[in-house]
């Protein structure tokens, strides 16, 4: 049985966060090496929260796509959901915001890899993939694919604040926000800055195996802690169909019951499963739209059902 371990030296257990209004001033800050730096910041609530609220007033549904685990397909699922939502109703406007600062995949996955963003008086213009589908990512601000964003938390938080408050999206029906794996700065900042903007909730992506579910349960715990509604869980890469003999194989075996069982245990909705299709991986690399090019793929068909459920969940919350 684990014994209680003392808190790491110097950093307080209940650090309010370097962006918090209480940064450097909370009782927990006494003795922290960062205290003076934090305390010399602006007093009062972070003005960024109000700026984000104003900027996103014209966005009907704001959805975070989370996981906890890396490599489960957050970016792929975000891209697929956004294309599907944009395609099913040409009058609706959809956008993707990529807040994975270290590993931004959306420019590639959405097929807009070498595009540039422009700044004007009304903010940054996102990159348009289609008439009713746009994207913003730090990937567009890097001049070379080898450029690494080697930033500590506070600098990443500043970027997220800018992305949430300074992109000129216009009117949107859905804003999907792709996140990096984990439960750290990016996630805390996103949830703080969106706290007054009316976040619809989070879609959680996982793969079936226990090593993924282990991290995903933590992400669901995070959502509960910061009061983000879990709209549902998508299980990606659930089964592989051999293109030759059609045998079904579990590449990532659901030895502990997969996402469905986890959802039952944690009382969160299960949105559906997506099978593992090598064509999807290839289309992601090439930035192609397989929803329109491969409408008969089992992935596209499963996705249709997931999108229907997601729309229902989002719209029920609006009423």
């Amino acid at each position: 049985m684990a014994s209680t371990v003392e808190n790491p030296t110097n950093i307080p257990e209940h650090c309010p966060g370097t962006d918090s209004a209480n940064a450097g001033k909370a009782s927990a800050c006494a003795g922290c090496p960062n205290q003076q730096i934090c305390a010399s910041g602006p007093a009062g609530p972070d003005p960024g929260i109000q700026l984000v609220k104003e900027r996103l007033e014209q966005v009907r549904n704001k959805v975070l796509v989370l996981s906890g685990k890396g490599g489960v397909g957050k970016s792929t699922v975000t891209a697929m959901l956004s294309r599907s939502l944009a395609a099913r109703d040409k009058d609706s406007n959809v956008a993707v915001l990529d807040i994975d600062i270290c590993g931004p995949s959306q420019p590639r996955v959405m097929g807009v890899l070498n595009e540039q963003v422009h700044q004007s008086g009304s903010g940054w213009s996102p990159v348009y993939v289609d008439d009713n589908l746009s994207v913003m990512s730090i990937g567009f601000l890097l001049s070379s694919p080898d450029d690494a964003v080697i930033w500590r938390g506070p600098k990443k938080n500043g970027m997220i604040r800018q992305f949430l408050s300074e992109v000129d999206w216009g009117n949107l029906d859905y804003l999907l926000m792709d996140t990096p794996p984990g439960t750290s700065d990016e996630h805390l900042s996103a949830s703080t800055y969106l706290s007054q903007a009316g976040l619809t909730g989070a879609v959680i992506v996982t793969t079936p195996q226990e090593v993924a579910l282990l991290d995903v349960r933590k992400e669901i715990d995070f959502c509960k802690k910061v009061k983000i509604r879990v709209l549902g869980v998508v299980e990606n890469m659930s089964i592989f169909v051999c293109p030759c003999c059609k045998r079904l194989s579990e590449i990532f075996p659901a030895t502990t019951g997969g996402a469905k069982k986890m959802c039952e245990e944690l009382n969160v909705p299960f949105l559906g499963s997506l099978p593992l299709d090598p064509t999807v991986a290839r289309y992601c690399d090439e930035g192609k739209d397989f929803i329109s090019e491969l409408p008969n793929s089992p992935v596209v068909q499963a996705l249709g059902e997931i999108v229907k459920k997601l729309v229902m969940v989002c719209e029920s919350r609006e009423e």
Partner: protein
Amino acid sequence: MLENVKHVILVLSGKGGVGKSTVSTQLALTLKEKNFKVGLLDIDLCGPSIPYLLQLEDKGVHQSDEGWVPVYTDQEQKLAVMSIGFLLNSRNDAVVWRGPKKTAMVKQFLTDVSWGELDYLLIDTPPGTSDEHISVMESLKGVKCDGAILVTTPQQVSIEDVRKEVTFCKRTKIPILGIVENMSGFVCPSCTECTNIFSKGGGEALANLAEVPFLGVLPIDPRVGALLGKACVKELPESPSAKTFNEIAEKITCT
């Protein structure tokens, strides 16, 4: 710090979900099979997978006069493990920490764990190029670090992130021991047709581009994922994965 550790090796990626923890644990077990004294440090604070992969989830750590005592996988104490996973009350508990607190934890793991004498300390990392990575590099200044093994899958979306990790290594002057391409092809157990589910060849191409050694490929083999605490080189000695793990261990132990 780490005075009695002969070799320190980082396992990095940039991309999540490529198999860093799987490669770290299997490499540690391979080195243990070759009779080296090994330490495995898990600095993925948000998603610590090592305790689960080594079936050590019910273990705890305690303090001694020399510092935190790591968890040993075996009676002979040939493989010592440390992870934040051992410090959580429940496996569902999220570690929701900002950068400064993560930095402090990483430093503690390096300075306050009583590793004892080790031939190899492998450090498993989370994806990205952020606090944990910057902190571990800062803490390892002054310690002899052999270098880093980078893990990728063959796809471009993975290569794209791993290129950034290569830049990180070059900027922080950590030698790159080589690149491993994981999830490289799946052989259907029924018809033996090999499907490149996550594309093909990206890892080797990146190694050439970055002018670093290519350490080998690991196919998708669900049997390896099911090993949980057992060495692939011992349980599945004829498998292509065992061959690659042996080759990587050979490369590490010869430099």
